[in-house]
């Protein structure tokens, strides 16, 4: 049993200025605004304001293709053996599942080389059964919800 904090002195990444949507004055009633990178980022950013200081998520780490209904989020945990990585990944997945249309396939990845058990983690996060099982666990769901509750700065 490890006593004390695992990550006593985390690298707190400086947050980048958010890109502000400039084409918001779209007045055409019937034009379609596809779901894009920035929108996904906004979805995650809105709730992850707190967590966002502890893992690294930039706009570039979000890939999205609205036509193919596919989204991939790559995140970077703060330390290689971060035990929070699983719960963070799970939270990102739950948040996206709740916020995107059901047609989407969601792919969550840890940035290459950023975590000790990268392969296992990726597999775990994208295994439908295991995710469903995890969400059956009331304690885990509570934890995820806590992660997702809006933080007020």
């Amino acid at each position, binding site marked *: 049993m490890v006593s004390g904090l695992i990550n006593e002195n985390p690298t707190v990444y400086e947050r980048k200025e958010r890109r502000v949507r400039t084409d918001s004055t779209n007045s055409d009633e019937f034009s379609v605004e596809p779901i894009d990178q920035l929108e996904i980022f906004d979805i995650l950013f809105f709730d992850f304001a707190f967590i966002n200081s502890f893992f690294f998520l930039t706009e570039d780490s979000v890939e999205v293709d609205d036509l193919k209904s596919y989204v991939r989020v790559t995140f970077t945990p703060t330390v290689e053996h971060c035990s929070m990585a699983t719960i963070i990944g799970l939270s990102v997945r739950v948040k996206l599942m709740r916020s995107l249309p059901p*047609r989407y396939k969601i792919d969550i990845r840890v940035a290459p080389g950023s975590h000790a058990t990268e392969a296992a983690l990726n597999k775990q996060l994208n295994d439908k059964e295991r995710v469903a099982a995890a969400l*059956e666990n009331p304690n885990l*769901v509570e934890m995820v919800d806590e992660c997702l509750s809006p933080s007020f700065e």
Partner: protein
Amino acid sequence: MAALNNLTEHLEAFVDVTRSPTHHAESLKAIATSLEKGVLSINQLVVEMDMYLTTTDDVVRARGILLLAEMLDYLKSKPLDNAVVHSLVGFFTAKLAEWRSVRGALSGCLALIKRKGVAGVVTAVDAEAVAKSMAQSIQVQSLALYDRKLCFELLECLLEQYPEAMINLGDLMVYATCEAIDGEKDPPCLMIAFHVVELLARLFPSPSGPVASEASDLFEFISCYFPLHYTHTKGDEASIPREDLSRGLSLAISSTPFFEPYAIPLLLEKLSSSLPVAKVDSLKCLKDCAVNYGVSRMKKHYKYLWPALKDALYASTKTDLSFGLESLTSPGFGMGEIHREAVNLLQRLVKQDISFLGLVVEDIRVNMVFDTISRYSRYEEMLDTSKLEVLVVSQILSVSARSSVESCNIIFETFFSRLMNTLGIVEKTSTGDLVHNEISTVSTRLYHGGLHLCIELLTTSKDLIPSSEECTSTPESAQQSWCSIVSRFSASLIEAFTSAVQSSNDDCSADAYLGVKGLLAMGMFRGGSSPVSRSEFEKILTTLTSIITANSAKTVKWELALKALVCMGSFIDRYSESEKAMSYMAIVVENLVSLVRSSHCSLPHPMILEATSEVCSTRPTYVEKMVEGFEEAFCSSFSDFCVNGNFKSIENCSQLLECVTNKLLPRLTEIDGLEKSLVHFAISMWNQIESSVVFSYDFNGREFVEAAMKTMGEIVGVASVDSQNSIIQKAYNVISSSTLPAMESIPLTVAALEGLQRDLSTRDELILSLFASVIIGASPKASIPDVKSLVHLFLVSFLKGYIRAAQALGSMINKLGTGSGGTNISTDCSLEEACDIIFHESDSSKTICGSETFLGKICLGFCGSLDHQTRAITGLAWIGKGLLMRGDKRVNEIALVLMECLKSTNSSGNALHPSTMKHAADAFLTLMSDSEVCLNRKFHAVIRPLYKQRFFSITVPILESLIVNSQTPLSRTMLHVALAHVVSNVPVTVILDNTKKLLPVILEGLSVLSVDSVHKETLFSLLLVLSGTLTDIKGQQSVSDNAHRIIECLVKLTSYPHLMVVRETAIQCLATLLELPHGRIYPFRREVLQAVTKALDDPKRRVREEAIKCRQAWTSISSRSTPF
């Protein structure tokens, strides 16, 4: 006796520490009230409290003393016996030594010391005793926060109110203060502590006094806070803002010259720090010190101060100089706080001691700029370092020059000729000619850096010219040597700036910017002692005007020149320079106005109009001139169009009218005399129309007619009643001379109307529209001639399809007098008579305005064509609006007619046309909504309060019953549209009062209206009404009762395809519904979640965002097993 019984009770309550603070406060309040009312005297209280004040139980004693102290605080303004005060202060002074009851003792002393102006103040001797006791027996830093604050307050109070007594104590007070401050960390305490130091410094100004001898120690205790830094930035709202505390510290440091040997080195050291806060604070503090320490003490530090100040300026200046329009009247680069403070300090130092300027003048870095300035000609080419040098040096010099006339003279004497030499600008000889020698060719090369420096100096120096009344009193000609220097160069300077502007091309705005800014600086010297002569001033104006008139497109140069002219115009007006005003009038105003008049010049018409209106609004006389010019221009263009058919002229006319409406009318209150000129303008518009009898060319200039109507209406709207009368009279004369009166004689029968096949001529149409606008804008007090025939004319015209006539008729009906001593006596026709004409019945003579009238019959399709029917309905709506707003009962019958039109068949069984029903439904919008074009406050409508509410309560029940009995789907839809118009335009409070009744109808309306996309706007306004009821507490019960229907309706609307805002609002409403009791909404969660999940895939982003929030909220009430 009862009072005394109660007293014991209250005393017990207060002394008992186990009771709650509210309890304590209550008992305090009770005792205080009885003391204030005189039921209880302070002596009695003390006697009663004897036991509490002397008991050996420390807690009880402390509470007792505190109670007495609090009481004294309550009685601050109540006269007390001197002996009582004396004995009380003695008591509290003694208790200061007892640490258990120190809070009470401190509060007591403070309350007593604070007494002033009322009977019973503490004597100086007693105050001295308090101070002594405090100094000797209290260790401030060992106390709690609140007690420490009391200590500082007590010290402050003693020093402020008993200065003599404190001087007697001498050293003791200084020691006590030092000891008290040492280690204090709380902002509110420090704030007082700093003030105490300031007071001490004021109390002991002598060099042999205790402050002088203890200066080093005292300074040490306060200097350790510099620069202030808060470690805990949040959480304590009552705390003092950093700026205030920092100001307090600065005042304490600068409070006495004895701190000088310690303070200045410290501040200079902190100034060199890399922390911005430290820099700003040091600069601020240095400025305070410079003011308070005096020149002789500061002088020692000049040689360190100047380099530090220079460095601060260099470090805080950014090199991106803006050549934009907005920086023409500002320095042109961003000023940080450090920069601003550094500039303030420099100005202060130079102002205070001219010898400081010696350092500036002799500075190598400053001097070097003048040698390197000619290395680059364009600003963009310069290296960042040289840009910085130029900007900083120009700042330093201009700030120093601004400080005083003397410093300005020195700066100009030292640098200006050198600068001119470098720029190749030559001096004027005594004969006034320019010396042309070989270097004059150099002057074509303009150095941006040099020009910038030069402009900064000129801009600064203009503020130093005394205003005209000052300069007559002081013979300053000898003083102002800078003036003569500038005047020697003025001609060549203006030439140089002019050539800079003229040589500039579009891709380089810097040349134009510097040129125009230079000219502006030269043109802004005021008064008789200006270094710029009148002819030179005129030359500047000519140059700028020629830039405006020569350009054919809106370039940066053009805008710069215009802004410069506007600046100069308002400058002339502000300082009432009559001579310059004459030049301005002759050169700028007349030139531009003549351009407006002449229809053919290279400059596009809108640009001339913009330039003229901007320039001329700087002074009333110019405005007059301009409106005159506009009048002429309008007349000539209009007649040019009428005679020659020049379509360009009519376009110019509409632009001119738009300019009047958009640029001049909004500034009516700012410009004196504008109203008169505009009324004149309106009358000459009528004159012109009157004289152009024949329109030889047919024109379909809708734009022109619209512009003319708008301008005419607004001018009448703002004019006084007398002016309105003259416009109306003029307009009436024009109308009478046209062919329009022929229409007045047409009898109101369908046959006659149909006989009138031909449309109005173009001219008549124009006259009619303009006349209608005049009537719309007229106030109720204005007199309208021959109302009866006018009513008839408008009536016929709107049946011919001129909606403006219907609006005019509505306005007229709204404003007419009621006949028997009504608001208006000057018109020959009362409301009754006018209504008689409008609602005249086809076969009998009694006047009602229901379906039996001629208009009513047309509306209901008993006679006339479909066109007549729809026009009659629209007209009736406007007339109804006029009546409704003034609170006339006749509107009810009009409403009945309109509702009759919404039924599928009329009373004789004929089916009504869909278009009729649509018009009738829209009539309700006309009736209820606030109109922009007529019948509003701007146009002096008579508005009875609550008229919308009244209409609502009359129509809604009828509409509801009609909906229930409606026979066809179309009629039902149209009835719902009408109801939606009524409901969505009434104030929301009315809806909330009737939620129970209205909710079912609104919900039905929403589902009926969502079928067809034509009703999308109506649907949206109705949805907004619904959302208003959801959030309010009043509507909550009925919302809860109807929850299932509301949710069903909203769920349907989340996929409404025609309007994004409808979907968005529906989803927001669904989220709001979560405030209802859990049991009411829980059954619908599956339904809602399904709908919202579908909305996650909405084509519009805003809808998706709302859907995410709403889904999240609804998920959280669902069971845990369905997390998504």
